[in-house]
């Protein structure tokens, strides 16, 4: 019995994240660099989140919202995902489904955010590991800014930002 699997490409990490969201029944929480949100949209992860929310599930996400990613964040908000913004994104990545399945990185591998980029991520189905990730997530969530507020701020900085 393996205790976890190392994932080594952005493409594979997105595929694993997709499977996690698809199999989630209650709640998915994610912390993702904004460039990866675009891939998430392209690979139907937003659609899978929408299906989860329509079935009564919850989705929460944290990212660093900057002008190029306002549109994808708006899509997430429109489907019912709770989104918050962190000012100084630390580079960590995590997706946790139903407090059990997770894929995560520890944030030192400065990601090449192309689909073929290298990543070192860890997939696990251990509830204790998920509890640790969710504890980190919740702390970041509490300090993060509501996405609507952030988008408004960016709008106030000038229309060219949106």
């Amino acid at each position: 019995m393996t205790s976890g699997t190392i994932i080594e490409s952005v493409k594979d990490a997105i595929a694993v994240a997709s499977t996690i969201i698809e199999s989630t029944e209650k709640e998915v929480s994610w912390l993702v660099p904004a460039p990866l949100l675009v891939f998430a949209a392209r690979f139907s992860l937003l659609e899978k989140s929408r299906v989860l929310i329509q079935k009564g599930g919850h989705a929460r996400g944290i990212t660093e919202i900057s002008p190029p990613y306002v549109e994808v964040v708006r899509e997430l908000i429109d489907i019912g995902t709770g989104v918050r913004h962190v000012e100084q994104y630390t580079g960590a990545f995590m997706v946790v489904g139903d407090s059990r399945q997770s894929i995560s990185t520890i944030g030192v591998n400065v990601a090449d955010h192309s689909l073929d980029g290298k990543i070192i991520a860890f997939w696990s189905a251990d509830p204790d590991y998920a509890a640790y990730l969710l504890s980190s997530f919740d702390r970041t969530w509490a300090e993060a800014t509501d996405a609507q507020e952030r988008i408004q701020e960016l709008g106030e900085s000038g229309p060219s930002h949106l």
Partner: protein
Amino acid sequence: MIMGERIIIESVKDALAVASTIVESAEEEVAWLLQPALLVFCFQFGITNKSKMLIEKGGHVRGITKVSGTYLDPVRKLLDNGEEVRHIDQYQGAFMLVGDKKESISSINVNIEDPSLDDPIVAFWTDDKAYADFLIATFDAAWGEAVDAEKRLQEL
């Protein structure tokens, strides 16, 4: 499932205590990635002395941190002890310490600007081998891109 023991650690003080135990029980190798401000606590908690003892017994210690003007002395002492240290420019707040590629304590983000021993953190201790493999793979990738600390000290 992650096999073996695993515990969530919730303060800087407890994380240092766990790190100290890991270094003490390591027989061959320790790898760490640490915020420079926390290096000072490693000296206070005797972790650096334990690393030195490991090296004297033939073990290896490798560490990555952000070497800046404020923390030149601790880094020099680590090098004097025989630790291999490298510098990364863009430290992103992660923390890890792995002993003998098995026991580990790690955190996604402990980027506290002015840490105190009682600061809350969220760290994960485990002796799961697969998790240690993941941490070491992450460490090695960072190590490959990091700059030798001696060179960095010269630059500074």
